[in-house]
């Protein structure tokens, strides 16, 4: 699957969906998409949907971490959607599973954000 980043708005959340291989070559595209999302709604909640991701390297992880830091600095947040084995394993090994809020679907992620 070729690398692609899509952005769509669902009500007040921005969903950035990534497909293919996220590495040092493709990571800048994700960075642009995340920064645009944060720009549009600095205190908003961004969901990075990694379901279609086949591979992620340290450059990709760096952008997710940087994106989360930037979003939180403005009062927003960046959460992940991921169930795939490959990506989950990397998040587990690097300890990022405990840093990010990770959900099994976009609707779960949106649900979790809703005030009780």
């Amino acid at each position, binding site marked *: 699957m070729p690398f692609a980043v899509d952005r769509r708005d669902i009500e007040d959340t921005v969903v950035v969906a990534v497909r293919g291989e996220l*590495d*040092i070559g493709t*990571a*800048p595209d994700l*960075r642009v998409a*995340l*920064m645009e999302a944060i720009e549009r709604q600095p205190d908003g909640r961004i969901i990075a949907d990694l379901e279609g991701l086949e591979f992620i*390297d*340290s*450059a990709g*992880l*760096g*952008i*997710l*971490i*940087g*994106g989360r*830091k*930037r979003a939180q600095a403005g009062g927003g947040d960046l959460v992940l959607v991921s169930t795939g084995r490959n990506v989950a394993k990397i998040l587990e090994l690097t300890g990022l599973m405990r840093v990010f809020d990770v959900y099994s679907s976009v609707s779960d992620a949106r649900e979790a954000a809703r005030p009780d």
Partner: protein
Amino acid sequence: MKFWPGSPFPLGATYDGVGTNFAVFSEAAERVELCLFEPDGTETRIPLTEMAAWVWHGYAPDIGPGQRYGYRVHGPYDPGQGLRCNPSKLLLDPYATAIDGEVQWNESLFNYRFDDPENSFNDDDSGPSMPKAVVTSPYFDWAHDRPPRTPLDDSVIYEVHVKGFTQQHPGVPENLRGTYAGLAHPASIDYLLNLGVTAVELLPVHQFIHDSHLADRGLRNYWGYNSIGFMAPQNDYAASTQPGGQVQEFKWMVKQLHAAGIEVILDVVYNHTAEGNHLGPILSFKGLDNAAYYRLVDDDRRFYYDTTGTGNSLNMRHPHVLQLIMDSLRYWVTEMHVDGFRFDLASTLARQFHEVDRLSAFFDLIQQDPVVSRVKLIAEPWDVGEGGYQVGNFPPLWSEWNGKYRDTLRDYWRGEPQTLGEFAARFTGSSDLYEDDARKPSASVNFVTAHDGFTLHDLVSYNDKHNEANGEGGADGESHNRSWNSGVEGPTDDPEVLEIRARQQRNFLATVLLSQGIPMLLGGDEMGRTQGGNNNAYCQDNEISWFDWEHRDGDLLAFTQRLIAFRRAHPVFRRRHFFHGESLGAAGPDIAWFRPDGTEMTEQDWASGFGKALSVFLNGETIPSPDARGQRVLDDSFLLLFNAHHEPLEVTMPEERWGARWVRVLDTADAFNEGEAVEAGQTTKIDARSLALLRRTG
């Protein structure tokens, strides 16, 4: 452009995945501007308004890898007081991890006008003529890279120039020749593996400057002892043409060499910078904070204190200078994965005030550093200052280029009168230099040639240096080389002379590889590389210096491969401890020395004038240090017969208790008598100027 306060730590340009933090030290500055450059050269200046403890900083949320940048510093300009701030000069970041472009030499790089160096001030913008620092990405897929961690005692070091090694290598694709990627190419790595070396020691790869006085003569700085970027890999050794691509390529090279089990040691030059003396260019440190970075002359701070003969010396008394050096060393170990360092003119680094001090701050810092203290540390133990020759005086963690070893071996094989005691001390690891402070034979890096001086081929082909190509009328370079041309100066087709030269090269290689200590080969010596008698090819970035693969000496190469394999197979040649010379039980002494008549050397023999032939017995059954599992190490026992005389010699084998029967396993006299067996008390012939190695078989 968006710009946020950022953080004063870490120093340099740090990309965090989305934006870049900039931080630079200057106590002299009143204001600092960050200058960002577009690909077309357009410059945007952003004032760094935040400062903490003299570190000026800011965060650019939209800036990432590939961005080119520099600094401009506003502050006092008063050279007499050691202050040289001049905002018209674009300055390189001392912490730049990559540098793009080369210096374009012109007057704008200087603080003065060429027609009036003493009294003028130059405020021409140097920006267009300066290389630029580049923001780099720290991310790299190291996969399963791990350091080989070859024990020092088992190491064979190969000193080599990144560019010269493959610039003319027919097996390396043209676009990769002369580059990091070229050294990482399978053709290069196979060669190193077949040779058997365990580590490459690379001539400087920190970004350096091609000096203007060389450019004026159509020459370039080839060796690179002229650093300006202590975190940045030299950009013109990269095949990659992307700004910052040299970092990824360097890492790739290390990864490939490690995968082959080969370590990477860097020759590092922290004693001075490329900014020269008071008339030198303004590239970085001078403009940032001249008095912090450099040692200035106490009673006239316009001038630079110089113990290196290069114009300036870094100020090892300043905390930010020490920090820069330690940060640089750690960066190359933790981020670039290198395995050790060889410190150029290391005595300079240990100078506290004027004298060289073993307890200097520099050594203390290295000793305490959790990263740097664990890699290989090799000193070039001299500089040109007072008391600068310090062989044997470095602290226990360190190994040293053993200049006395080089001089003694050269004199021995060219037949100069000297005491055999001196030769014996060098051959056995120089315990006289190192044992008194509990150092081991691995403290001694044994070599006869290095980049600075004749190649091995030229050492046996020239009495005198031939440096005309360097453009100084042949006056530069060392004049006292202890070399011998074997009968004719330079190229010849006289077969007798050629035979002597071939044999002398084998003598040197065999002695180095059979000595106790760490052997170091100058890259190319194993294939007869010549520089046409040039013993100071620092400025010869051309065929004079580059490996000539087409005309390589295949016989010598095969001989060297055999020698290295032999050393690696026999632990008696790489003992971890010095010899005692005393009897250690039934197996007898660990070492014994004999005269050609087969009797043991006496006190008188050691001092005698006829110091050209001797034999040494190495006992393979008395190696004192156990292996990694605590088991006793057993090896064969050997007898080495040395004859530096110009005539053959009859040598009587020692009496039977030293060995009943011996087989000649190696002979530098063109396989003179290899395979021949000889018994105790019998005589055997050893050819003129040769070395024979006999293995005990009974």
